[in-house]
């Protein structure tokens, strides 16, 4: 017999909530390392950050931060708050 739709929804919510927390933690870490990087002001010649790529990367981090923590913050936070630990995310096969 088919599983209840509520459980399929919970699997979607749980997995997205887990990944949302990872993304948010990643943004925090990227912003932290950027701060330290800017303070250190290393020479970027002949590295992947040469040619203005450091500024491009910084803008990308900002854009991601804005999207996750401002523009779409409500749904991301709602997902995280709706996480059910005892649901084991098996109602949808991924």
């Amino acid at each position, binding site marked *: 017999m*088919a599983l*209840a739709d*509520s459980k399929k929804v*919970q699997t979607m919510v749980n997995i997205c909530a887990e990944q949302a927390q990872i993304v948010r933690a990643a943004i925090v870490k990227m912003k932290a390392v950027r701060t330290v990087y800017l303070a250190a002001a290393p020479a970027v010649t002949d590295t992947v950050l040469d040619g203005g790529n450091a500024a491009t990367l910084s803008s990308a981090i900002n854009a991601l931060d804005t999207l996750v923590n401002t523009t779409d913050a409500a749904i991301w936070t709602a997902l995280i708050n709706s996480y059910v*630990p005892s*649901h084991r995310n098996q*109602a949808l096969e991924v």
Partner: protein
Amino acid sequence: MATGTIILPILAASLDASNPPGLDYSQNRPKLLFDDTTPEIAYWVFRMPSNYSSALTAKIQYSMASATANEVEFEVSVMAVSDGDSQDLDSDSYDTANSGSATVPGTAGYLDEISISLSSNDSVAAGDWCAVKLARDADDGTNDDATGDAEVWAVSLEYTLE
């Protein structure tokens, strides 16, 4: 009419080899955790008391780990073997499962009780060797739509005395 009770202790349960419920403790009190997606199974065996007459009923006391809405459903199956029956006890011969569902309490952790009349009871009689199988009907899309674990705290059987 007087009733008898058979307590099926949580710690006396045999847990299914393939799909066992989790065994956990809260404040040193044991509970079985039944998953919301995979039907998990616990078993008890005992000798039916000599004063058993009829109306075998399962009483399941549970709470939900997190759910505060929708329903949970349990199934109870009975296998009864009398002295002299042609039944190999190494094989299963459970009668049809009896089911019962309830809307879960509005607060996680609050106790609720589901009473299931075991009308399919393998013609159990006093003195029979009995096996009882308890499962959450987790793959019932209609009667079990509460998410997260169901925590079973106590299971007993009641019956009318002879």
